[in-house]
């Protein structure tokens, strides 16, 4: 029956999809983290004194000792350090990107953020490089991780 089949789409199949839309609650910790970004263009974390760990993004509980740390807010400044990075050459559809994207995990306190790095030649990005966020203008900020356009080498 399928001997002469040369295309997968020639066999009987149905195309099915489903629009799935969710609303993800940032929570107490996330709300405050993003409010600080929106209003003051700075990062805050929560600190577990017992474990000597500062969470960025903040949590209301310590995932190491499970203590409640929702009142232990600390300012962690703006700068971070490139802990690891990768240059992406393809997009989510598998297409080659015209301009490769430098992704990085940027260590801030004992946590950090995933983000893009720009304003630097990808070849010059190094582990250990100190970077700072390029925020959108205040009027454009909505309280989201995308309020940060990217990180760039610290001035």
């Amino acid at each position, binding site marked *: *029956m*399928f001997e002469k*089949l040369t295309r*997968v789409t*020639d*066999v009987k199949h149905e*195309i*099915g999809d*489903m629009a799935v839309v*969710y609303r*993800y609650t*940032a929570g107490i910790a*996330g709300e405050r983290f993003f409010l600080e970004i929106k209003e003051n263009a700075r990062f805050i974390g929560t600190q577990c004194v017992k474990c000597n760990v500062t*969470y*960025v*993004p903040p949590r209301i509980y310590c*995932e190491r000792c499970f203590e409640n740390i929702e009142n232990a807010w600390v300012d962690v400044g703006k700068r971070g350090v490139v*802990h*690891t*990075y*990768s*240059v*992406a*050459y*393809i*997009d*989510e*559809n*598998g297409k080659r990107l015209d301009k490769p*994207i430098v*992704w*990085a*995990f940027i260590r801030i306190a004992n*946590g*950090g*953020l*995933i*983000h*893009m790095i720009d304003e630097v030649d990808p070849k010059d990005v190094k*582990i250990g490089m100190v970077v700072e966020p390029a925020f959108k203008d205040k009027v454009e900020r909505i309280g*989201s*991780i*995308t309020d940060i356009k990217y990180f760039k080498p610290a001035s």
Partner: protein
Amino acid sequence: MLEVAIIGVGWAGSKSCTPDLSFQEMVYEAAVKAYADANVNPQVDVDAFISADEDYWAGYSIFEEYVPDQLGAVLKPTWHITGDGLHALINAYMMIRSNLFEVVVVESHSKASDILSYAGIIQHATDPVYVKPLGGHPFYIAGLEMRRYLYETGVSEEQCAQVVVKNKRNAIFNPNAAYPAELTVEDVLNSPYVFSPLKALEVSSTAEGAIVMVLASGDVARRLTDVPIWVRGVGWAIDTPNLDGRDWGRAVYVEVAADMAYKMAGITNPRRQIHVAEVDDKFSYKELQHVEALRLCTRGEAGELLEAGSFYVNGELPVNPSGGCLGVGNLLEACGLSRALEVVLQLRGQAQGRQVEDAKVGVAQTWRGIPTTSGAVVVLSTEG
């Protein structure tokens, strides 16, 4: 102590694509083979069934509805877990150890070519508040891991490329592998960067297939088969899901899972006591990282041992003689059973052109892929 053995295995695939078969038909083929191998009738002799899959891969909401019929499990105790097939195998082990069940069947499969939004599903698995809004193909997370792993251990890009060469070559001798190839390290290094330092040929391609295994208590196993493969230890763990809290250079989830399984199995010196290892290699560097996490060598040593030939089929510690995910194909949640299947065949002496000599104890390890830190380890042995 109650003993548990694998008494039957069956599989369909692995193939890059199976346009003519529905997933039910693939599972049916694997199930019929497994029941014949175990000498059991599913409707009479099997006490319970477990299937492992992820609804998003399956493309069905509440996928457990669709598990029973192709396994001969209609109106029998059946459940479905969201996880890797190795997690299902561990569940079957616990059910039999509980002494409430004597024969339990596990199943996992992949119908990857039916998934038209593969990267989208993985992207949907990243944190929806802190990561997903940034967009991008989520395999950049593998690039981040690989960079840090190489930085911390001194393992080289050439050594990672050699994992691809070895595994795709091993797959040539595995009739169940979808992606066999004779490559050179240069071929791999010359393939384009996708998520640097990760190159195109270092990413396993998805494949299709189904694997079914029959597990039984010691008494039943000895009655039904001359070649029971004993489950000696099981372990599993998940690290934090938060990308800000995990260890980027180490597979800590496998270290923890391995310690649990080894303790149960009485393994104190894995490098000496384990004769064959099937480990997750969804990306080249993962094989080396996982071999180290399984304590089959010291941290940072895996690259050199690979270059010295230790991990080849005739080496001191063969790793992925099946071809791994790179050679057999990435079977999604069936990857773990694919690893375990090869260990079973090796310990039975049925691995034909890729048989490891005198393999009596083997380890199978899995990882659920980007962006997870979910791993499982099972120790198998010819000795009860």
